[in-house]
Each structure stands twice: as structure tokens, then as C-alpha cells.
């Protein structure tokens, strides 16, 4: 303490606190500058120049936006992968968020064996290892005699009906006058249910935590005022967990982005085809798209968010 006093002589307390604070944060500042800021700058440099590899090194020559034009007009798969990934993200966000909110509300009720249920619902996070997926995919491909995983996926989706005639229900819903777009979405959601369940482990935990932190007195008040459970949900539960909608949305988007095909393509382009510039363009473009999605959906969700304090 005395040492600190001597060193800090002539400084105001707030000044000294500021310096201590900066010291605490300094590893992050340093890491951000060295690894993130610099790398982002380098990625942009790669994207706007032509890279040629010579021996162990490489040279860059500035070409402007040529690579972007090339990626969008010449590359055979990039457009398709980008659009696919964006669509699947946009479809997944509401599905995963509503599913996990629903499950969290259910797990928050008091019933026998809920600790076990919670443990099971978090399991997918443990099992979400790319290595395991890779191994299973390879096994499936080998069994089908080919090396491409595509037939496996087709076989699976064909078999998922499991004896239930889906056509009947589709016809039923169409007769009810559901628009085709809504029908497609519902069918897609049903087909993705397995994926949705495995992707929402962390989100369920986050919503559960939020639900636990709602003070019981709010529910008491609602009950005394004569609110029905439906009203209680919309007036108490939903506003109180709404700040976490944004957190979960960000987490969902990033999680599905990391597993998307467009990033796989970027990785392959960089390290298999050794086309650094094109790969950099891919990752930059997809990053901008993800930030756009985050911005738009964050803006949309923030209309429903209620901040308690």
C-alpha cells in the first residue's frame, strides 16, 4: 500500500484508478491490436490485391475490386453458397429462438426430474464437435459406397417420413388456405427439428438463467390483479427475458455462420487451392452479410425489448 502511495504521488485518485483500470484491460487491448485489428487490415489488403506465391513467401500487387467482381461473376459456387447460408440463417434465427424460449419456460416449471431434463437438453453442446460430425459423415458415405455425402443426406431426408404420409398433411394444410410460403416454412421447420434441437443448447441455458432471475413478486402482483396465464406471459415473462433475445440472436447467427458452407468454401480456397485473395474476399463478403443480418435483426428485435433498469 505504501509503495502504491509513493508511486501515485501527485496524481488524483481518479487518475490513478484510470491507470489501474487500463492496466487490467491492457492484455485485451494488446491482443485486439495485434491479432484482430491487424488481421482484419491484412485480410482487406489480401482482398484488394492479387497474391502470387513464391517459395515460402508471397507478393501482393494492388488490383482494386477485381477479386470481388471475380467472386461474384466467375466463381462457380460462391454465389450459391452465400445465398444458401444467408437463407438458412434467416430461417434458423426465429426457429431456434422461439424453440429455446419455449423449452426454457417448460424446464423452468417445477416438476419431478427437471435437473435430469436440463442436463439432457444441454448435452448437444457437448456433442457438437465437428470431429464427430465428420467421422459420422464419413461412415455414412462409406456405407453408401460413394465418397460424396450427398446421397446420404438424400437417403436420410427420404427416410425421415417414417411411415407417416406427409403428403396427406400437406394437402390438408393447403386446403385450409395456407399460403405456399408459410407452408414451405412449416415443412422446412419440421424437417429441421433435429438440427434446431441440437443447435439450441446454449440458448436454452441463457433463457433459463433469465427466467430464474425474474422476481417472483412480479408474478404475485399479476396474479392479484387477475391476469390470466396468457396475459402474465406477455406482460411479465416476455418483457423480462426480452433483453436476452438479442444475446441469443447474436449467438445463434454466429453459431450457424461458423458451420456454414460459405466459410468452408473460404477455408478450402485459402488453404487447399492456395488462392489467398479470393478466400479473403469470400470471408470478408460473408462477414459483411452476417453483420448486416445481425444489424437488421437486432434492430427488429430491439423494438420488442424492454429494459428493466
Amino acid at each position, binding site marked *: 500500500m505504501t509503495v502504491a502511495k509513493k508511486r501515485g504521488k501527485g496524481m488524483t485518485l*481518479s487518475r490513478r484508478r*484510470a491507470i*489501474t*483500470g*487500463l492496466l*487490467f*484491460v491492457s*492484455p*485485451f*487491448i*494488446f*491482443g*485486439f491490436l*495485434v*491479432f*484482430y485489428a*491487424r*488481421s*482484419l487490415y*491484412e*485480410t482487406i489488403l489480401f482482398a484488394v490485391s492479387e497474391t502470387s506465391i513464391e517459395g515460402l*513467401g508471397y507478393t501482393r500487387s494492388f488490383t482494386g475490386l477485381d477479386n470481388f467482381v471475380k467472386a461474384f461473376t466467375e466463381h462457380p459456387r460462391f454465389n450459391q453458397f452465400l445465398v444458401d447460408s444467408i437463407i438458412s440463417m434467416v430461417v434458423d434465427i426465429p426457429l431456434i429462438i422461439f424453440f429455446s424460449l419455449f423449452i426454457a419456460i*417448460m424446464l423452468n*416449471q417445477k*416438476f419431478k426430474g427437471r*435437473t435430469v431434463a*436440463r442436463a439432457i437438453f*444441454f448435452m448437444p453442446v457437448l*456433442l457438437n*464437435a*465437428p*470431429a*464427430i460430425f*465428420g*467421422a*459420422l459423415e*464419413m*461412415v455414412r458415405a*462409406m*456405407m453408401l459406397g460413394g465418397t460424396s455425402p450427398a446421397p446420404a443426406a438424400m437417403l436420410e431426408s427420404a427416410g425421415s417420413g417414417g411411415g407417416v404420409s406427409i403428403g396427406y398433411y400437406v394437402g390438408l394444410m393447403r386446403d385450409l388456405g395456407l399460403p405456399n410460403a408459410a407452408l414451405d416454412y412449416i415443412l422446412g421447420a419440421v424437417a429441421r427439428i433435429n438440427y434446431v*434441437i441440437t443447435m439450441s443448447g446454449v440458448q436454452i*441455458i*441463457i433463457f*433459463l*438463467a*433469465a427466467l*430464474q432471475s425474474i422476481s417472483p413478486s412480479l408474478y404475485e402482483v399479476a396474479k392479484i390483479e387477475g391476469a390470466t396465464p396468457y396475459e402474465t406471459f406477455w406482460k411479465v415473462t416476455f418483457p423480462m427475458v426480452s433483453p*436476452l433475445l438479442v*444475446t441469443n440472436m*447474436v449467438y445463434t447467427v*454466429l453459431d450457424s455462420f*461458423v458451420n456454414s458452407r460459405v*466459410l468452408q468454401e*473460404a*477455408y478450402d480456397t*485459402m488453404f487447399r487451392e492456395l488462392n489467398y485473395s479470393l*478466400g479473403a474476399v469470400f*470471408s470478408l463478403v*460473408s*462477414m459483411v452479410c452476417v453483420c448486416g443480418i445481425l444489424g437488421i435483426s437486432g434492430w427488429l428485435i430491439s423494438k420488442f425489448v424492454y429494459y428493466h433498469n
Partner: protein
Amino acid sequence: MESLKQKLRAFNTDTRLQNEKRRMIRWFASFLMSLFRLTLIVGISYVILGPLLGIAVSSFFSNEDRYSPVVYMIAQNPTLDRYRLTITEMNYFSVMWNMLVYICSLTVIQIAVCSMVGYGFARFQFPLKKLLFACVIIVIVIPSHTIMLPLYMTFRHFDPFWLFSLFGAEPMNLLTTLTPMYMMTLLGAGLRSGLYIYIFTQFFRGLPKEIEEAAFVDGAGTMYTYVRVMIPNAMPSILTVTIFSLVWQYNDLFYANLFNLSNDWILSKRLNSLQSSLAGIHRITDPAISALYVYAGIILMILPMILIYVFLQRKFIEGVERSGIVG
């Protein structure tokens, strides 16, 4: 007709009967609710655990069982051969030990650094604080895939501040070593460090200031307060970050591939090459049989995480609830 109406009126005015009726309805509603909940939970648990169970069960199948049409789920001649060969082929115990040492040390560094940075953001006022916290958000939002190429280059020709070239030495090649991972984690730029910093910041913000003030009044320095007062109070979020960090680091294949880490350290890489080495060395080319070995490998791979999770599970879920993920 008249008598029926009378009876109905009598029923409607009898409060005891009315209460009985209401109780019945309520009981039935709650019964339906639990039934619905049970169905849903069992169904979803099946979706989650079903594949795992299938993999676990078939990893005990012997060759005859695999091809016998009557065997379903339970093996007739269970065998441990799959595990025996897989363990030697993956060099399981030594690689597992290496990997546990690796991810545990990373987790410890992760917690030390991220909690420190989080504390700094939560409790101190300094210039550019808002901007720096925005940088934390940027780190969370930017996927590490975007910066993978420069990272690769940085560690391929590692030359901190051009010092090596200044003294005429060649830049170092740090790929295939564990140094890049340790270096990034130490500087708060490791696997999902941004998220952990965010969790810790939110948690420290939620702690009452009085604890710290009491420590200051009693003459504790900043560092002493942080280590002896704040860290013990942050146990829930430390537990949360520990589990997340262990699991994600364990499952991570992205950095392992990017930095080309040796498969003496990374079990996932062993699992990925298991099938080809079975075919190449042991001449097990029947895909149906070699799948069983891969299943055994998968079980071996997730076993440690499941054990850790089962031990920490109850505390973990309680911990998350108080950990400051909730802003």
C-alpha cells in the same frame, strides 16, 4: 324438462358442488399440462440421446452381430475388440492426457485473463472505455474465420515487432506447436475470449460496490482486492466459463487445423484419421465393420466431457443462473 332445469339451478347454486367442479377442472388441466410436458421432454430427449445410444450400443457389436438380422440394439456376442484396437490406434491414453493438460491450462489462462479484463471494464473509469468495450463486441461478432489467413501468416513467419529481422535472425515458424494458441489466449484473443470477457464484465457490474469499498477501507490494494475479494465472489461465472471453455476448446477443430497442431495433442484429429488408418494398416475395409470402430472412437472421445459435465452439472446450471450472462 322443468325438473332438469331445477336440478341444474340447484347444482349451480350449490357452492360445495361448484368448488368440487372447479377443482376437478383444475386438476384435469394440470394433468393435461404435465402429460403434454412429459411427452415433449421424452420426445426431445429421445432426439438428443437416440443417436448417442445407437452409437454406444453398436460399438459393442461383434462381426456376426453386425450382419445378423435378428440383432437390434443389444449385441448377442458383445465384444470389446472395437475399443481395444481403437485405443491402440488412437494412442488414446497418452493423447488424452496431453490434450487434457493442454485444454486445462488454456482454460486457466482464459479465466485469469478474461476475468481481469472484465474487472477492468466493470469497475474502472478510463479514457476510451466505451470504444474499447465496443472492441469486445467486435471480437464476439467477427468470426475467427475472417482473420484466419493473417493469423496463419503471423505464426508461419513469427517476427514480433520485426525484432528477429532487426538482429538478422530468420522469422520463426510456430505452426504445429502449441505456442500460437497459448499466445492468443494470454492476450485475450483466444477461442471465444470476447464472450468470456463480456460474461465477466456483466457479472462484476452486478456485484455490489460495498464489498470492494470495505476492502479498500481496510487497506487492501487493488490487486489484493481483485484476487482475494472479487475472484471468490465470482465463482458462479468462473464455473460457467470453465465449462464453456473446456467444452469448446475440446471440440475445437478450427484452430487445430489452422495452426496444424500435431495429432499427439488433438484427439479429434486422431478420430478423423481413424478410418483410413484402419483400412491402411489393419486391412479393415468393410465399411460396415470399420464404422463400428469409428463408433467406439466417438464414444471414447466424448467420454471425458460427459464425465466432467456429470460432475459439474448441478453446480453449472445454478452457476449460469447467477453468472451475469443475464445482463
